[in-house]
């Protein structure tokens, strides 16, 4: 029997003086993943954007749980988004969206 695909949800914070759109953000993440792991590696990540809040510069993405560390490394290499200087930090990660949102609540200053 085929094992169920497990996922990880990652909450991201975009550190930039400019507003970053969701397409720009995902392009930057895909670009970083492709540069580091190539098309074969990128195909295993199961990356998808779940939510994006341009006002707060926050986003939630989904990835295959086996590839979380690769995604973390790739996201850490981002230094610009749409030619604007930026950094993307992973605030927290969880196996379910519900738990991720709870964790995000506790992180609020």
């Amino acid at each position, binding site marked *: 029997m085929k094992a169920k695909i497990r996922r990880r949800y990652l909450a991201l914070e975009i*550190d930039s003086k400019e507003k970053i759109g969701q397409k720009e953000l995902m392009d930057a993440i895909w670009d970083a993943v492709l*540069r*580091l792991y190539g098309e074969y590696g990128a195909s295993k990540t199961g990356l998808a954007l779940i939510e994006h809040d341009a006002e707060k510069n926050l986003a939630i993405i989904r990835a295959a749980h086996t590839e979380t*560390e*690769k995604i*973390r*490394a790739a*996201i*850490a*290499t981002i*230094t610009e988004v749409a030619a604007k*200087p*930026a*950094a993307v*930090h*992973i605030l927290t990660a969880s196996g379910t969206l519900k738990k991720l949102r709870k964790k995000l609540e*506790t*992180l609020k*200053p």
Partner: protein
Amino acid sequence: MPRDRDNPMKRRFADLHLQPNLSDVEQTKSIIAKASELGYRLVAVPLPIAAMDSFAKKLAAACQENRLDFASRLDLKPKTSKELLQQLRKFRRKAEVIAVVCESKEVARQAAKDHRVDLLNFPAIDPHRRFFDKAEAELASSSVAALEIDIKPLLTLKGPARIRLLAALRRETAIAKDYNVPIVVSSGATSPLHMRKPLEMAALASLFDLDKPTALSAVSKTPLTIVKRNREKLSPNFVAPGIRIIRKGSDCQ
């Protein structure tokens, strides 16, 4: 910012190589504030030899405002091994962390075997100008020097230059592990946008095949141990390793 920042069971993280432009006060303060925000507990900034004390006081105050521990650091860039020995004699007791920027093989070898050196830093991007090989690792393993790897070039380089650097780092970390040379992963950040969270630094270390426990130690336990060891040595109560004054004068009766 994190709720359990003061939890003693929580892993403490350190970045021993922040490189702000010290003449730009705002930028320096923003880098220190960012380090605190990202979850570091201890930071070190290389100080200029000419005005060490004044910068150290200012930086310590800025770190205290952000609830960070500050360690003074000196980066020695000697041209010859003789010059390195002179500088170590002069400055060892003035800074909590001594790093040697190894730009020649002669300096790298001398730095690796000297017990007064804490960190060996190889800034060159060109693999032929990086001198951390088996002979260097053997010397470093018999002293206390650790291999310091800056993350900043991995972020700023692109394409073949980054590929070559990753290959060189992979080779160096494998040698360091074989010879039990401690590894310290630092940011080398010159701006807040080059700073990454400790877990992100550990994930970046996986790009040069550092396993997760070693990578986490490289941003927490190893740098903290270096600073702790040197603070003990620089304390006026230190006599020799394992021996310190606990009471003196009338207290002894």
